[in-house]
């Protein structure tokens, strides 16, 4: 078992899990598969056949709550949503992103198309990554604050119009792209009914176009800005799954960085921290499968190693035998 895990090609395994996740979150309910409504992944509520709801949608919805009602049933509802999210999140941690997210799978498919076409992918330098990394926190704060401002009057400004409801969903490319897979093109509409709706849907459509291009040239482009990733990171210290690196064993060969779809520089360069479940990390485990050092990178579940880098596994996966 140990040997089988060490030698396995995690990338193939992951691709199959991803396809399963995609079918689950786009068509699941049609087969009667219903998980939950507070899922820590892009189970987009605009897709009819989804088998769950994205927590971000739920949060935006629930946060439209007057502050004086926080300690009532409504506040409890909000709390329960967070608890539900945490229960789903705690065991699998960020591997929701790497293994389950339908939007991630879609981007991976676009990247595979690019690979077939022989076009090189882009990478971002560390300072660029640091700058881009802030965007997801801005998006997360906005998606939490705008609903609050809809229910609570700001001094001098008053309440925000309800036309701003679920602001992140309106600009999220999952809303526009995922329903297409069940033949629903209605989300491509530009909503002219009010200025906020026009701004949000217009922005959403521009983002969609840009993300399609982005995912083509940069692997997992949207994941760099994803507020879900930020929300995950807030709770990731408490989650059971962790990506651990033994700095002593690292030769800084950079193979892990090459394998990383989001391009986390720290995975190869950081020699101080053991827990490298960083904010952009998808826990896709590609870095582990690309590491040639015995036990240097590993995925642990409550401290116990589940999958680790091995010399033997590395050379089996990278023997480059002609096909």
């Amino acid at each position, binding site marked *: 078992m140990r040997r089988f895990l060490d030698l396995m090609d995690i990338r193939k395994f992951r691709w199959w899990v991803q396809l399963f996740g995609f079918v689950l979150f786009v068509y699941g309910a049609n087969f009667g598969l219903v998980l939950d409504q507070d899922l820590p992944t892009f189970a987009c509520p605009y897709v009819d056949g989804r088998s769950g709801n994205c927590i971000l949608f739920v949060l935006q919805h629930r946060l439209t709550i007057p502050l004086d009602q926080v300690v009532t049933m409504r506040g409890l509802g909000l709390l329960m949503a967070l608890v539900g999210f945490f229960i789903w999140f705690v065991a699998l941690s960020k591997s929701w992103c790497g293994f389950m997210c339908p939007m991630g799978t879609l981007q991976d498919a676009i990247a595979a198309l690019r*690979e077939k076409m*022989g076009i*090189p*992918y882009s990478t971002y*330098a*560390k300072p660029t990554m640091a700058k881009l990394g802030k965007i997801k926190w801005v998006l997360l704060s906005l998606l939490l604050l705008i609903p609050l401002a809809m229910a609570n009057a700001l001094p001098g400004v008053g309440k925000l119009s309800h036309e701003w409801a679920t602001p992140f969903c309106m600009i999220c490319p999952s809303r526009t792209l995922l329903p297409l897979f069940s033949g629903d093109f209605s989300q491509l509409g530009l909503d002219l009914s009010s200025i906020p709706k026009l701004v949000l849907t217009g922005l959403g459509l521009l983002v969609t176009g840009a993300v399609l291009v982005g995912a083509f040239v940069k692997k997992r482009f949207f994941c760099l800005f994803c507020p879900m990733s930020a929300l995950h990171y807030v709770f990731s210290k408490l989650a059971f799954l962790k990506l651990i690196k033994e700095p*002593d*064993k*690292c*030769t*800084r*060969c*950079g*193979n892990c960085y*090459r*394998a990383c779809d989001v391009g986390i520089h720290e995975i*190869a*360069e950081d*020699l101080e921290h053991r827990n490298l479940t960083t904010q952009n990390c998808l826990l896709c485990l*590609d870095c582990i499968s*690309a590491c*040639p050092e015995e036990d240097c990178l590993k995925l642990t579940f409550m401290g116990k190693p589940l999958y680790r880098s091995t*010399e033997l596994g*590395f*050379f089996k996966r*990278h*023997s*480059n*035998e*002609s096909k």
Partner: protein
Amino acid sequence: MSVLDRICNEFPDNPKAMGRFYRFFEQRHQGQADWGPAGTRIGTACVQVPEELIYAVGATPERLCNGAYTFDQIGSEFLPIKSCSLVKATHGVLAMQNRPDRLPLVVLPTTCDQKKKSGVLLEDMGYHTWVMEMPPYKDTPEAVEYWRASVAKLAGELERTTGRKITKKGLRDALAKTQAAKAQYRRFHQLRKLDPAVIWGKDAFLVTNSYFFAPIEDWTDALSQLNDELEKRRDTGTSLGGKKAPRVLFTGSPPIFPNLKVPLMIEELGGLLVTDEVCSSTRLLYDAPAPVEEGKYEWVESIADRYLKPCTCPCYAPNEDRKRKLARLVEDFAVDGVIYQSLSGCQLYEFEQKPVERFLAERGIPMLYLESDYSPEDQGQLSTRIEAFLESLKTKKRKRKL
């Protein structure tokens, strides 16, 4: 008595599978001087030249670094007297053979100043040389880009020289060859960790040195046989050198056949060379690229990265990775002491001697620093110092056991 005789006949318990490696050297050093694989050969002057690209154009790399005193002396006529023996010998052998037709291209990475400048002199002799520009740092993104560009330019030059394009298929086959070699080397590396040891360090140096010129498939096959035999030794409990023998790590300027003066001396005086951190051995074969996509761009880039990022050559201004690598090796191989050799005139290794010694001292590992060259004159002085060092290691080891 030749060095090869000493290696083959003076030690007990040579593994049978070493015979194939001994023969590589017999053919090369006692038979035909240019013995090696058929076809176009590309001369490489340093460990940083990406061999995968050379295989991809259907040629074979031949590492030119030379260890013969005779050529050292010939080289002295062309190069400054204080240059290091390795550079002089390498230059000497090329000057003496003077057959630019045999090597259509000589690739020189700009590692140290001496190699850089001697490359220019080679050009005067009629050799077609190609200088691979190397960044003096390896950690900045600019350095990585610069080096990748340098590797890509080499790819272009290789295509021009051989008249063959680097194709996806060519790269895939090249990588298959080198990855197989490295996989075997990793196996070998692990077997050398065993305590008690199953192979002498001098044999290990022959294994890695023969990678310079032996046909890669033969080499891989021979090493695989050797590994099988060593595994049997491990299982049957055959061991070398006895339990008291101090386990020594060799680092510094590369010992290249036939200049195995210091390594041989260590083992003849009762030490055991369990591992090394030199560019003719571990640094040459340990690291392997891991391309994640199928494509020329990805393969060339990942190959470029493999020659830059994990490299611990002292030509990089800050070289913390070398210290970390040494610490790793010391721990993994249960090393008792480190022997650090600088070839006289090799400034880079001389510069790093002090910081490395301090680093090891902090971890309680004694280090012996030796300065030597290819001449046999300093043998007496060296052997006295090595013997004393090994004695102190033995005493320390005995005390630790008590």
